């Protein structure tokens, strides 16, 4: 549910990083926070437990710059990945404009990834949103663990498990090293802005715009 403010020529969008517990959602946001300049980002807010598990959400707002005269502000959220925090995930998904699904490449997490994606589809459906039509990007995280001897799933298996029907843009990543983090963010931002633009044009309100700058 983007907020389009014609008084300030500003568009605010909400992007949620979704995925199972410990898949690297918070690590994505932390990397973005560390690598962006203070003038384009706000404070990183995390509500977590002592064990680094997100209990409510992480939040980071970013200014992506101007597109055709509109200031584009995106608000990045993560959800708690653990199964029993479903009520919190539903709360964070309220008003979502785009989703990054972060999948854990570890072989041991295969089922948890699938469960989490099904949970995302269900929670979106409750908000009358479809996982097939909402701007969505897949990120296959923790690719660096292969070099450390961990058993990880090949990308084509992850694609088959999670993306064979959805056919969303996908990126391999190592969020802890920053690989693939900004590529993912750039793609989801582009999709969200395009989606908002299309909706505004359909309603015959405002100006058209395309492309994402700033990141």
């Amino acid at each position: 549910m983007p907020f389009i403010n014609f008084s300030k020529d500003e568009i605010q969008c909400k992007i949620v990083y979704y995925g199972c517990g410990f898949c690297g959602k918070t690590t994505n946001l932390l990397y973005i926070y560390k690598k962006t300049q203070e003038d384009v980002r706000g404070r990183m807010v995390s509500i977590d437990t002592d064990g680094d598990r997100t209990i409510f959400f992480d939040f980071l707002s970013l200014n992506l710059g101007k597109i055709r005269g509109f200031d584009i502000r995106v608000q990045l959220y993560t959800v708690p990945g653990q199964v029993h925090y479903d009520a919190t995930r539903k709360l964070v998904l309220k008003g979502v404009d785009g989703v990054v699904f972060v999948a854990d490449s570890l072989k041991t997490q295969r089922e948890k990834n699938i469960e989490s994606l099904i949970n995302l589809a269900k929670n979106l459906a409750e908000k009358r949103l479809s996982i097939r039509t909402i701007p969505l990007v897949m990120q296959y995280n923790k690719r660096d663990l292969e070099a450390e001897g961990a058993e990880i799933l090949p990308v084509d298996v992850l694609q088959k498990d999670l993306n064979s029907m959805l056919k969303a843009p996908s990126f391999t990543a190592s969020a802890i090293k920053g690989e693939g983090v900004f590529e993912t963010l750039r793609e989801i931002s582009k999709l969200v802005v395009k989606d908002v633009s299309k909706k505004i044009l359909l309603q015959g309100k405002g100006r058209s715009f395309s492309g994402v700058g700033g990141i």
Partner: protein
Amino acid sequence: MDIILSAEDVKRIDACLNKVLNKSAAVSAFLIDRSGQLVANCGSPSTLDVSAFSALTAANFGATSEIAKLLGEQEFNLLFHKGQNENVYFSVVGENMIMVIVFDDRTTLGLVRLSINMIMDELLQILSPIYQNKG
């Protein structure tokens, strides 16, 4: 489901928030959507990160709504946090918005609540068509 605010809408919302500030002598006023998006703010929020403030306000309301349900209530429609120097008062506005007033010891909670009540109908009249027209 886009929320489109015209320059005129924003002007009218700002006027309502300013009325609350003028009548109550509060520090700052915010109108925040329940998904955590800031709609408007007036007053002097100093160095406050308004985006983070809006996200946490929506989360705060979401969490207390769940507490209300556990107690068999539909919702708590106002919240109050008292600090050493500044206090925050949160009030539900219709189904989709939350008004937040930050105030210090130059005014009282009662006056803040009274000031909000005085503009509530006007604010709902402004917001109602915005949410009805959402795409």
